[in-house]
């Protein structure tokens, strides 16, 4: 008896009990749908976050000095140690394309002419290449040493009349001092450009560290420089050097070995005795450089853990679904005892009967898996669309779902089918 005949006969008996088969399948549908929905959502979430790292960002290394035992995200436990000359030394290294300090300057407001909007924490001082060419909607990068700025669309849109390239803005800093900037570029996104900023959308102004951060640090005694508002009071002696809490190093390319070279060279240079930073560095302060991807990995690990947990719970309903199939197959075997007797009387071998019942439960499992996948994908996409994440097609999970469907069918059908195969035809034919 070939498999096609098995399928045909098995399908007949499923057709004969439409409602029962549908209800049985429902358990598997819900189980698989739940798993697929959460996996889809999770995949979309990850792409939503990881996808924000533009190709250029892939070669950036974000560094800070902190106690090596400190756990946490970017800048956790960071202390301001990098001097401008340290960073210039790093920038001159062979394997490094660019290096510059990074700091958030505490501000109070921004004015465009007479119009004034409140904005704290949104002024970011960095090197010119921090705003990558690819991120510029119009205009150009700011230049070091100039009173220039690149703003993002959220900042531009804050004013009644959109700010455009060539306009002049006035920033009021936390201490009350003001500074004017020429807008030379506008970015294409309001989301953060690096993990230092975070990836959420908010109004931001990008300015060169020189002169803005240098002035701030000198004027305020190196006030708050971190995005976390960490109170770096380290520059209190404020005599000569401005120290940066964070630094960005750009590797030659996105290749892993180039990134590693740049990282090693930068760390070696900063930790060497010649650097200004070395006076602070020691056992309880070490320099760390990580790429966005590495920084995100932590977040991703948490997401993965959460997803596995939810998928695990969803998988329980799959188990319940399997038990449902097994139960209904057992009922079916009892109910069709006579049919089994007939088949055996006319020459069906045990394995024919086994095959028939197994095929039936596999069909139920696979139908459940296919429907469940469809429902799960729909639910996942709906969820992703609702929270505004990119849609991802986890195709390998669809294949996996079908495989799970077959597995569920086999697992739940094996015992009932074995019971059917073992049925004594004499008793079965007498069965009413």
């Amino acid at each position, binding site marked *: 008896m*070939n498999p096609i*005949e098995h399928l045909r006969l098995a399908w007949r008996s499923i057709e*004969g009990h439409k409602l029962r088969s549908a209800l049985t399948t429902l358990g598997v549908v819900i189980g698989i749908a739940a798993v697929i929905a959460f996996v889809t959502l999770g995949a979309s979430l990850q792409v939503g976050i990881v996808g924000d790292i533009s190709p250029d960002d892939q070669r950036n290394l974000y560094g800070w000095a902190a106690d090596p035992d400190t756990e946490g995200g970017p800048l956790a436990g960071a202390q301001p140690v990098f001097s401008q000359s340290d960073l210039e030394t790093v920038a001159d290294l062979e394997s490094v394309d660019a290096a510059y300090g990074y700091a958030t300057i505490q501000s109070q407001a921004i004015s465009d002419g007479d119009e004034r909007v409140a904005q704290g924490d949104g002024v970011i001082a960095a090197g010119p290449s921090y705003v990558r060419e690819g991120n510029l909607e119009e205009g150009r990068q700011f230049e070091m040493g100039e009173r220039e700025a690149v703003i993002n669309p959220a900042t531009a849109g804050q004013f009644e009349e959109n700010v455009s390239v060539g306009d002049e803005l006035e920033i009021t800093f936390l201490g009350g001092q003001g500074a004017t900037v020429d807008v030379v570029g506008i970015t294409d996104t309001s989301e953060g450009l690096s993990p230092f900023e975070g990836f959420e959308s908010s109004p931001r102004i990008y300015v060169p560290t020189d002169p803005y951060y240098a002035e701030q640090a000198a004027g305020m005694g190196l006030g708050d420089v971190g995005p976390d508002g960490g109170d770096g009071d380290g520059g209190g002696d404020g005599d000569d050097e401005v120290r940066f809490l964070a630094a960005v190093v750009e590797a030659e390319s996105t290749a892993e070995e180039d990134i590693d070279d740049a990282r090693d060279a930068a760390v070696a240079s900063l930790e060497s005795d010649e650097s200004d930073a070395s006076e602070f560095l020691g056992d309880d302060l070490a320099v760390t450089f990580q790429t966005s991807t590495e920084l995100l990995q932590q977040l991703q690990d948490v997401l993965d853990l959460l997803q596995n947990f939810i998928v695990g719970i969803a998988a329980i309903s799959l188990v319940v679904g399997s038990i449902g199939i097994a139960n209904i197959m057992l009922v079916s075997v009892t109910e069709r005892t*006579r049919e089994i007797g*007939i088949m055996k009387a*006319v*020459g069906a071998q045990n394995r024919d009967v086994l095959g028939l019942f197994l095929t039936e439960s596999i069909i139920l499992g696979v139908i459940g898996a296919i429907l469940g996948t469809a429902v799960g994908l729909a639910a996942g996409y709906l969820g992703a669309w609702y929270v505004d994440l990119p849609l991802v097609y986890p195709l390998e999970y669809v294949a996996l779902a079908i495989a799970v469907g077959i597995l569920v069918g086999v697992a739940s059908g094996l015992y009932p089918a074995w019971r059917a195969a073992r049925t004594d035809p004499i008793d079965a*034919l007498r069965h009413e």
Partner: protein
Amino acid sequence: MATGTDAETDREAETGTAVRLENVRKTYRLAEPVHALDGVSLSVPRGSYTAIMGPSGSGKSTLMNLVGCLDTPTEGTVIVDGNDVTTLSGRERTRLRGTEVGFVFQTFNLMPRLTALENVALPQLFQGVSGDERRDRARELLARVGLADREDHLPSELSGGQRQRVALARALVNDPALVLADEPSGNLDTETEADVLDLFAEFHDAGTTLIVVTHERHVAERAERIVHLLDGRIERIEQLEGVGVEGGPGVDAEYESGTVPESKPRNGPTEGDDGE
């Protein structure tokens, strides 16, 4: 052995005996041993028409199960189409049953969700016969039982007599060495009973070996001989006259119970094609 010619060769080799039972005992171990069959020897020639009669508990069903290769004896041998059933494995026994034994039951026992055609073709499905071949063969047999126009009907859409015809067609589909009928007309009214029995006679005339278990005298009387069972033994074998026996070594029965076989002229009310 699914094809007719193979089966025929085998039949010739087995000196024209479809089934032979030698001193068969079947004991069920219940609270105390029950001897369902207690030393039965019987030979059923090819092409013969045998009726088995007896009261409840006489061992009719047990005998049927043994001859039908559904069961094995506790003692003695059962030889079906030249194969010693007692020495066969379960799988071989199933094969033998599938190819050499056709069953007709009182309750028809058709598969409820299969059409008449599919029911007839079912035994060949398990023998691995291809779909086209099965359909052709099943159509041919449905035509022979007069149901050519009912092939797509489900059993529930057929009358009792029609169902039993389908069952008979199914029993014959593998061209078996013998057809076993268990109270084939038990669920039929008088008229359809006569039709079905006429059909049996027709196939008997065409060379099919028939064994019919019944408790109704008029059904048994359409056979060539009646084997009377009582308490697990053959009480007597009754030869019926006026029945056309083509060739074969005639009736060759051994029995233990020592009753003299009683011959009796056949007085069947239905003439039909029996006497020809």
